[in-house]
């Protein structure tokens, strides 16, 4: 019964999604308020229904209902309960259920936290989200229904892929999907703004916190995926330039550009068309990611699905989304491009370079990911693009990005002074270069790569810290987005330092060991003490006991395993890792070797700085969360642009109230001034606050002010 109930609820959800997609949009175009107000209730109802359908599938897993084909494929009696929960998204159909669940969560959150937004905007945003939901529910119902029954009922399920039976994989997909799907919110805001024809700073401010949260989830998801691959695949790699990783990296690169571009749109009213384009690109690449992973076109670890009809459906959906949004863009964008002025050397210029470089990086990754698929599809042969290509392209693009990051945060809007910036940053630059050049000697080996990587990492880290300290020493409240920005940059610096360190100083030994043998990687000695058998809930494993000595002293015993899962013929390597802040010791157990020597093949790795990658990612995520929690967004969203525009207009008549209101908000609202006055006032403000702190200030929408004044 539970399967039929689930399917029935899912069909209901489809109908509700259709209503949510069509009526509010039509209502907003024909000014029928009642229809527009349907957007929120339908969003909530849809969430309830999708959650219900998802709950049905989950119940199927928890009750070991193997009459459901999908459950039988991905679970069995012996699977521990947490993994039964995770098994729901262990396969193609279930992961799509997770996709729409995430989408309905995002939709409801948008519906809930946008109470103060004008109904015309929110109804269109929710309508676009409804459209996406329709597409995906149709996809599930027609090509990948998880509720199909299987007869005769198998007595036992096939089990979850052992690789996925891991805590990392319990949280990795939901985080990544939150990020992927979150891009749909940025996309929906962009499309709603295009339909409305109002790409103003208010739009970018509504859109920013959502984009930043989605970006944080994406960052966390990618970081978790990398972490999982590192300890679970058993050979110590943490990034493979695998198509699936690329599929998540591309939206990340574009959304990083989008966050920065949105900032320019909000603060300066510039880059509007570009920002919209990035929002469309970020969501399209998220869809592409779903397509790549879920259509079976990849020769990759993750491509478990293998049904071409699915791929064609996603591809068509992708074509519709990209095609229609670009058409809308081409039709509407010329009307809305009215950027602010900018000097050749200004923060805008740095943001522009950031956008261009990130876009080029995305294009390069896209080329390397799609080219083999296209060639294969055209029957021109089979080929692959190896990691050397990506490394060769990516590193040189990251160098200017990292180098320009610090001048970019220091530069003033509109017109920056090169000499000021140089004087401001020269000591930081000097310290970075000196440390970057000398620290590799401490590690025992100097190379240009380490020098460059560490200098840039230190440059970004120290420059960010310098800026944070300078800001803290100045009076005035510091907004969440200031902390967010700088923590995210600090996280990036830590990741860069870590990547350089591990790439340059790792030691990898593939060895054969018999009991009593020792392997030395200075200053560590690894000794194989014993081999044994252990039993897990649904596997048996060979386990090695390897004692680690640090400078002659025994520090710990590592226990790598080779697991054999009962329900699958597939062995699994379970690495043992010892971590501290500076390094990982990584041991994974291979096969016993033939012959009388009783030897085992073993991977013994010394991986310096690996923990820095994970710490750096977490700091970046923390930055994203801090930025999205900035009070400004909450305060500002309590002001609809209609209200503020109205206020601006009514200021003449009712000036006092307006002024009081501005003080309450933060003191430097500029809305009732003419554009020239705005410029001069901003400049005078810049004189006594740091260059970028001005934009942090909760000024009301300059744009609506300009509009109302003109």
């Amino acid at each position: 019964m539970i399967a039929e109930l689930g399917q029935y609820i899912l069909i209901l959800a489809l109908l509700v999604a259709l209503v949510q997609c069509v009526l509010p949009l039509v209502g907003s175009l024909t000014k029928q308020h009642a229809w527009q107000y349907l957007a929120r209730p339908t969003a909530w109802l849809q969430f309830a229904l999708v959650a219900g359908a998802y709950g049905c599938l989950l119940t199927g897993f928890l009750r070991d209902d193997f009459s459901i084909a999908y459950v039988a494929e991905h679970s069995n009696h012996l699977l521990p309960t947490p993994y039964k929960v995770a098994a729901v998204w262990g396969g193609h159909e279930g992961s799509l259920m997770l996709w729409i669940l995430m989408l309905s969560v995002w939709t409801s959150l948008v519906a809930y936290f946008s109470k103060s937004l004008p109904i015309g905007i929110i109804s269109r945003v929710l309508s676009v989200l409804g459209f996406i939901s329709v597409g995906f529910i149709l996809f599930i119902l027609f090509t990948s229904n998880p509720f199909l029954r299987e007869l005769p009922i198998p007595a036992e399920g096939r089990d979850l892929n052992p690789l996925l039976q891991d805590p990392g994989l319990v949280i990795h997909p939901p985080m990544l999907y939150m990020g992927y799907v979150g891009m749909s919110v940025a996309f929906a805001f962009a499309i709603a703004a295009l339909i409305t024809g109002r790409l103003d700073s208010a739009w970018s401010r509504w859109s920013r916190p959502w984009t930043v949260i989605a970006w944080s989830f994406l960052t966390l998801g990618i970081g978790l995926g990398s972490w999982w691959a590192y300890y679970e695949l058993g050979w110590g790699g943490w990034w493979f330039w695998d198509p699936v990783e690329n599929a998540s990296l591309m939206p990340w690169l574009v959304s990083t550009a989008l966050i920065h571009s949105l900032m320019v749109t909000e603060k300066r009213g510039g880059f509007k068309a570009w920002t919209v384009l990035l929002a469309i690109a970020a969501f399209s690449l998220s869809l592409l990611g779903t397509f790549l992973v879920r259509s079976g076109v990849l020769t990759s670890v993750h491509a478990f699905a293998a049904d071409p009809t699915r791929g064609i459906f996603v591809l068509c959906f992708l074509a519709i989304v990209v095609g229609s949004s670009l058409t809308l863009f081409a039709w509407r964008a010329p009307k809305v491009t009215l950027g602010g002025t900018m000097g050749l050397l200004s923060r805008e210029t740095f943001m522009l370079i950031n956008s261009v470089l990130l876009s080029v990086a995305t294009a390069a990754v896209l080329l390397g990911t799609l080219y083999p698929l296209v060639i294969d599809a055209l029957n021109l042969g089979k080929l692959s693009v190896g990691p050397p290509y990506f490394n060769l392209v990516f590193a040189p693009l990251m160098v200017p990005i990292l180098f320009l990051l610090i001048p970019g945060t220091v530069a003033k809007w509109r017109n920056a002074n090169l000499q000021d910036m140089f004087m401001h940053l020269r000591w930081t630059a000097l310290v970075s270069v000196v440390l970057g050049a000398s620290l590799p000697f401490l590690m025992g080996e100097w190379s240009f790569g380490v020098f460059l990587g560490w200098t840039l990492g230190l440059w970004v880290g120290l420059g960010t810290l310098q800026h944070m300290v300078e800001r803290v020493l100045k009076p005035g409240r510091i907004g969440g987005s200031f902390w967010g920005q700088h923590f995210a940059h600090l996280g990036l610096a830590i990741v860069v330092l870590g990547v350089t360190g591990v790439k340059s100083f790792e030691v990898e030994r593939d060895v054969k060991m018999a009991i009593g043998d020792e392997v030395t990687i200075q200053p560590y000695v690894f000794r194989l003490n014993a081999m044994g058998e252990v039993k897990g809930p649904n596997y048996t494993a060979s386990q090695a006991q390897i004692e680690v000595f640090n400078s002659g002293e025994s520090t710990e015993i590592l226990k790598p395993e080779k697991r054999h899962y009962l329900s699958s013929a597939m062995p699994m390597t379970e690495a043992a890792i010892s971590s501290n802040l500076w390094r990982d010791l990584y041991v994974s157990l291979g096969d016993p070797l033939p012959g009388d020597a009783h030897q085992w093949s073993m991977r013994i790795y010394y991986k310096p700085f690996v923990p820095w990658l994970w710490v750096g990612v977490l700091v970046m995520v923390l930055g994203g969360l801090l930025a999205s929690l900035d009070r400004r967004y909450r305060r500002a969203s309590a002001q609809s642009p209609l209200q503020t525009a109205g206020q601006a207009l009514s200021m003449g008549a009712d000036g006092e109230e307006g002024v009081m209101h501005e003080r309450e908000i933060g003191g430097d609202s500029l809305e009732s001034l003419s554009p020239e006055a705005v410029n001069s006032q901003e400049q005078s403000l810049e004189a006594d606050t740091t260059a970028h702190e001005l934009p942090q200030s909760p000024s009301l929408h300059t744009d609506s002010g300009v509009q109302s004044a003109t």
Partner: protein
Amino acid sequence: MTPRKKRFWFITVGIVVLCIAAAFVLNAFQSNLVFFFTPSQVAKGEAPRNRLFRIGGMVKDGSLKKGSDEIEFVVTDFTNEVSVHYTGLLPDLFKEGKGVVAQGRLSDQGLFTATEVLAKHDENYMPPEAKSAMDKAALERAAKSLKPNSN
């Protein structure tokens, strides 16, 4: 500078930077493509010498030899065979009679030395490249076996 001039410079610099980036990317791309060949193609001499490429097929039953350092096995598409040398740990799912993809170089003596044996993470999953190698060879065999009948 007038805004028009400024815009001109922005666009010019932008285009120049983009062109340099594109040239650079495409160059790196060109030199890092790894092509795929089936054992039959290797036997016909279609595969390049001393350039990185991939081969795929089945690991021939009984062909796996683990030496003290080096591992040796034979990749077959049931028409032709290539023997592969490899130093290192084999992936968990490497088994005789299962599909495999190996990346490496062919020496002038016709010896394939793999630098990487690719892991595939599902026992029922056949690497698409290995599968296509098998299919191609099977098709050619079928075509050959049909010829005498038609004559």
